[in-house]
């Protein structure tokens, strides 16, 4: 599935009584990347959750246009086309490294033949039969990243992806993100730490307000 662009309009969210952000709107086209910044609790994770379809916004729309759907947005939003990496690993402790990856690959419609090479790329090749319970936090993160390789989804939503990765792991993450963007994918990441790539755009959320680093994403001409 090739994605053409993702258009976010008038998006608002609140947590309990507190307004996180209001009327956010932007458009990302294929090959573009957006970095979300802001203090803790400013709504970065909530925004990613909404984009991933795991949370309902208070108002507004997320529309995804694929190459094949032309001018009408996909009716089922991001379901089946996005990767969502969060602090929760979605790994089962009593399954092995390989079983965990195989399950998600099958479940999300990925390519099972890529499992071995994905494990090699993320550096877990020597331990496919170890239970996920025995992995360190960094190794779990690497196993999560392996999902990005076996399943080719055009939209990546990464929430603090570099946390608990070592130097090599961070370099690997940078490389994966670069390859994804140059292959025409769309990347939206929230991070406090530098991720090693130049993001096209930055969105800063602060207590109900938001700010882009440039006007590009807001300019109708560019949509």
């Amino acid at each position, binding site marked *: 599935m090739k994605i053409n662009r993702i258009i976010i309009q008038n998006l608002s969210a609140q947590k309990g009584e507190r307004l996180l952000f209001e009327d956010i709107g932007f458009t990302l086209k294929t090959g573009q990347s957006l970095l979300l910044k802001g203090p803790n609790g400013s709504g970065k994770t909530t925004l990613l*959750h909404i984009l*991933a*379809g*795991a*949370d*309902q916004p208070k108002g507004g729309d997320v529309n995804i246009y694929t190459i094949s759907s032309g001018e009408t947005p996909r009716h089922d939003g*991001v*379901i*089946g086309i*996005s*990767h*969502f990496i*969060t*602090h*929760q*690993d*979605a*790994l*089962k*402790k*009593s*399954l092995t490294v390989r*079983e965990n990856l195989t*399950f*998600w690959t*099958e*479940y*999300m*419609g990925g390519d099972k033949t890529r499992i071995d090479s994905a494990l090699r790329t993320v550096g877990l090749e020597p331990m496919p039969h170890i239970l996920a319970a025995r992995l360190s936090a960094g190794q779990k993160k690497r196993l999560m990243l392996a999902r990005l390789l076996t399943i080719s989804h055009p939209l990546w939503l990464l929430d603090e992806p570099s946390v608990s990765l070592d130097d090599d792991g961070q370099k690997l993450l940078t490389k994966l993100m670069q390859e994804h963007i140059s292959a025409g994918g769309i990347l939206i990441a929230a991070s406090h730490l530098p991720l090693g790539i130049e993001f096209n755009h930055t969105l800063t959320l602060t207590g109900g307000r938001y700010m882009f680093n440039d006007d590009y994403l807001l300019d109708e001409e560019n949509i």
Partner: protein
Amino acid sequence: MKPLLALLRRDINLFFRSGGGAGQAIGFYLVVIILFPFGVGPDINLLARISIGVLWVVLLLAILLSAERIFSDDLEDGSLTLLLTAGPLPELVILVKLIAHWVSIALPLLLITPFLALMLNLPAGGLIPLIICMSIGSLGLCALATIGAAILVAIRRANQIIALLILPLYIPILIFGVSATTDMTYQIEKPYTSLLILLGITLISLIIAPFASAQALKANL
């Protein structure tokens, strides 16, 4: 279809591998049924008369006690979010999880029921009706348990609350399950009336459960 089969395999695999799942339910079922004759005393006729009811009640409780596990583990490690947003329709995903739960909890209980029925002096000719009715009824029980587990997914150790919430819904299945088994065992006139009602309740529960649970989970994620 392939993602759903993968999920079914994974869920059953997890239930048997991580312990606590099927083991706990079987343990409970076994212990209660074994203790019962000791409590009631050596009156064989009395045991035979109450055996169907006792087996049903304990089966119901065993399923109720394991209800929480349907979603809690997946919620904890974040799998639930991915399961509901990154794959097939949520309603289908829930239906598969329900079936996986039935295979890993109810099926083992049904398999040991013949041995436990012996201990309770189940009337002759009662075993086959019992297994048939319990197979149907337990599917309905699992469906209702799924709704309870979905509504209370955000609460930790919610087993008791789930029990309170869905117990009223279990009563019709218990009544018609026991009466269907009794009618077929003693071969009364028109022995299948209660069985058909039991089947009806189970089918309705199976249809409602995925939709109700999907809505509840969406609100809870």
